[in-house]
């Protein structure tokens, strides 16, 4: 590096490290602008075409009703998921009863459900022609239709069963961090158990409940698969319908409205979590579990736990069971009558059946590689950039996390339909590249988050030590920083990979006809009444998720990672890394 004229350098006051950050930031900002920000703007611009006719349509047509329905379902989902998740958390962190251990293991099982297949399973379990209603009709003589979860109820059921972990996790963490002596003090001062809950515990759990609620609301608003299965006209459904019928302006207007709601919630969540972290609670003292006594309560608890475990395991069991069904044989019976291994052997022997697996794994693999490069470098730049730019970059890369998959799909379709200076002349419609692009946009925040978290664990003077010993900026990144980030990044990248592998919501908007990804193939098979094949794909997907979850678990707490004692919280949006597609 040639020395700058010293007068110039003095005014800038930049070190070589600062300059390297800028050099690196430039292409990253470019990429994020072209692939994340510009597509959003393109959608907005399209929506305002024709003097905002689309918005007139929006308010007068069915979109307004769809928006109200989406908000209603989301609010209801927050309540039901909050009730289930919160109750489960309290039960499992505060009480000792028979069956507790088993419940703890299975409480997080819904997180292993692939999005599309998950929604399908609930349909075949609790829907009008599902296993449970038929069983009820057979044994109790009550009409299946009257006990089935259909329509809005079906959507709500899926949301509750797949989103309660958001509450379960945050409330468990909140309870574990709370101080048992506070409760004892309250009861000691004469508060009844109920009063104690109202005056002491609930206020303490507010942050956990608010986080869970905001997250659940966002994910519910973005939900597409469940409404599609139960044919409920939410805003996401209207967007896809508008796009399919060729009303691009209306689809863009609907997308814009949904984006605004989602981004509002992302900002709300950031604001709330930042505020919360400034007044962190005191360290909790370990607390004794309340043991449930008495023969009757213990029996009830055991039976209840067993039932709950059955309910939690049922979807997974159903996926496995249905994957062995002979296509087209399950009609009016409670359970499918005929089973075969052929669904699986066909997938691996018939090239046509193998193709969706290959398409999805290759597209998702490509997206994962791009996400690693962009996510890791952006995390590094955000961590080392001392100026305002860091926050802007952080928001830019986290935006897609807030956007519903449907909207991401619409954005891509709008932005890359024809060559313009903004998309650098790239056209992706009908191209195979559109899938990896969609997966990249959707899941780069996940890799970024994980990379940023592992970066926050690294003592910055380690990088300085490398430079001091003669390593240039790239060398330092390659030999010190990146190796130290590997585990965290790998966990995030694998998670991104399985999500891309099963991605449905954006895929269904953008996929090129000749290259149906796995999820679309599953939907088509299901539609063609080839249930066994569809669920065989689904169980492979579930297997992939399980493997990744296990690897991630193993990658946690590497033995050589040293925690900085005074680690400041990373300047990064605090969001959970759970799946965000429903």
């Amino acid at each position, binding site marked *: *590096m040639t*020395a*700058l004229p*010293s007068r110039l*350098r*003095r005014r*800038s*006051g*930049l*070190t*070589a*490290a*600062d300059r390297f950050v800028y050099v690196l930031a430039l292409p990253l900002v470019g990429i994020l602008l072209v692939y994340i920000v510009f597509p959003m703007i393109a959608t907005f611009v399209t929506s305002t075409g024709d003097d905002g006719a689309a918005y007139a349509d929006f308010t007068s047509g069915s979109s307004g009703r769809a928006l109200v329905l989406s908000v209603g379902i989301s609010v209801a989902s927050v309540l039901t998921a909050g009730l289930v998740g919160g109750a489960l958390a309290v039960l499992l962190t505060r009480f000792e009863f028979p069956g507790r251990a088993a419940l703890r293991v299975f409480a997080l099982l819904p997180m292993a459900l692939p999005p599309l297949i998950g929604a399908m399973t609930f349909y075949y379990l609790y829907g009008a022609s599902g296993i449970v209603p038929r069983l009820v009709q057979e044994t109790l003589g009550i009409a299946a239709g009257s006990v089935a979860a259909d329509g809005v109820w079906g959507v709500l059921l899926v949301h509750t069963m797949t989103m309660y972990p958001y509450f379960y996790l945050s409330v468990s963490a909140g309870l574990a961090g709370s101080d048992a002596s506070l409760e004892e003090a309250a009861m000691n001062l004469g508060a009844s158990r109920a009063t104690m809950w109202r005056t002491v515990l609930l206020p303490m759990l507010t942050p956990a409940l608010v986080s869970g609620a905001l997250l659940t609301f966002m994910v519910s608003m973005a939900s597409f698969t469940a409404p599609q299965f139960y044919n409920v006209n939410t805003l996401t459904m209207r967007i896809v319908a508008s796009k399919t019928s060729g009303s691009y302006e209306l689809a863009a207007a609907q997308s814009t409205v949904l984006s605004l709601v989602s981004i509002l919630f992302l900002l709300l969540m950031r604001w709330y979590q930042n505020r919360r972290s400034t007044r962190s609670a005191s360290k909790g003292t370990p607390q004794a579990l309340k043991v449930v006594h008495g023969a009757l309560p213990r029996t009830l608890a055991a039976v209840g736990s067993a039932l709950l475990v059955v309910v939690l395991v049922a979807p997974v069991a159903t996926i496995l069971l249905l994957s062995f069904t002979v296509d087209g044989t399950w009609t009016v019976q409670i359970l499918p009558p005929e089973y075969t291994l052929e669904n699986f052997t066909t997938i691996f022997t018939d090239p046509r059946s193998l193709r969706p697996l290959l398409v999805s794994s290759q597209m998702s693999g490509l997206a994962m590689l791009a996400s690693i490069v962009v996510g890791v470098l952006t995390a590094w730049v955000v961590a080392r950039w001392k100026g305002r730019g860091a926050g802007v970059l952080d928001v830019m890369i986290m935006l897609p996390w807030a956007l519903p998959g449907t909207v991401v799909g619409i954005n891509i379709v709008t932005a890359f339909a024809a060559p313009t200076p903004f998309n650098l002349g790239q056209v992706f419609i009908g191209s195979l590249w559109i899938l990896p692009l969609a997966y990249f946009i959707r899941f780069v925040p996940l890799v970024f988050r994980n990379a940023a978290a592992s970066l926050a664990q690294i*003592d910055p*003077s*380690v990088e*300085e*030590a*490398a*430079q*001091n*010993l*003669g*390593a*240039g900026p790239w*060398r330092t990144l390659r*030999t*010190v920083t990146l*190796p*130290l980030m590997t585990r965290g990044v790998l966990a995030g990248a694998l998670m991104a990979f399985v999500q891309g592998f099963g991605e449905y919501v954006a895929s269904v908007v953008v996929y090129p006809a000749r290259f149906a990804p796995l999820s679309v193939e599953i939907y088509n098979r299901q539609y063609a009444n080839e249930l066994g094949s569809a669920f065989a794909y689904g169980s492979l997907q579930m297997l992939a998720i399980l493997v990744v979850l296990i690897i991630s678990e193993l990658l946690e707490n590497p*033995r*050589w*990672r*040293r925690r900085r004692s005074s680690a400041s919280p990373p300047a990064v949006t605090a969001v959970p890394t759970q799946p965000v597609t429903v």
Partner: protein
Amino acid sequence: MTSVELSHVTKTYGAAAPSVDDLSLTIEDGEFFTLLGPSGCGKSTTLRMVAGFVAPTSGTIRFGERDVTSAPPYKRDTGMVFQSYALFPHMDVAENVGYGLRMRKVATAERRTRVDEALAVVGLAGYGERRIDQLSGGQQQRVALARALVVQPSVLLLDEPLSNLDAKLRDETRSQIREIQRKAGTTSIYVTHDQAEAMAMSDRIAVMNGGVLHQLGEPREVYRRPATAFVARFIGRSNVLPGVVEGRDGGTAAVRLTDGSLLHTPVAVDGGAGDVAVGDEIALSVRSEAVELLGPAPAAADRAEGTIHARLAMVEFTGSSCMLGLDLLDGADDEAAGQADRRILITIPDTDDLPRTGDVVALRPDPARIWMVAR
């Protein structure tokens, strides 16, 4: 091996007052030089500017003839030992020590011998394959030292390398560092806020406060002839007593203290507080161990020149010696003024016949060891 020259170096972060303010100093070839000062005085900032991690807002830094002000850290050929050690947690001890050699493209075989040598020098022969988290704090510190030394840097930079060690290990390691440095003859800049450490190790010390250089000199000089009241208080245990110059006689000045006593003090001809004139308001630095306890004080009117009367307020037994805290008396009568800044501390050998608290005693500061500083 090279000299290091800072000229008019200033570093300002944002709108705050400068962290380092117009600092000029030269570190000689092979010298062990210490930056000493309280927390936040800009020592680390200065060191990091020398290393290249912080760019000065203005001023230049030279290594010998070479202007390195805008050179990146990896082209400065300094070896730095960080306070947190900053060892690479994913490499073993030998890989850590060999990292700088690898960056310098030293062949594997030579690298191995030099790493082994360096480890032997710091007393860690045979530890090459240990993981970093299998080492104690002291051992990690020595790995960091070996890693910095093995590349034979032209300047060795140490930022409070001992602050994470316990007292005993600190003393051991400090003489070790000094010995290794002396053998290698590497120009070294050492940062610490521990004045005893600075005294024991350094060829020269630069005392800083609030980003400003207060004094630069050999340990003895800084101790005996503090340039400012701050240096007098920060180094050793010194009483800083305000007074007014009443007379000048060649190399000495007569100074009337606020309590009315008259002390004679040498006046610097070679800098220090500089020349003074009658009527100047100055302060005297009186080391706690340079005060003699004369015994019960005579009446205030009979106070001898060169003595101070004070009332004993507290006694602290520290083993080999006693530390006494006394309150200066007001000029006229023998009443204690009772203000905090009138407390003076003296250290005397432990004896059996100490005065009792409340007694008024006469003290005689050693005239040769009184030093005049600006107020």
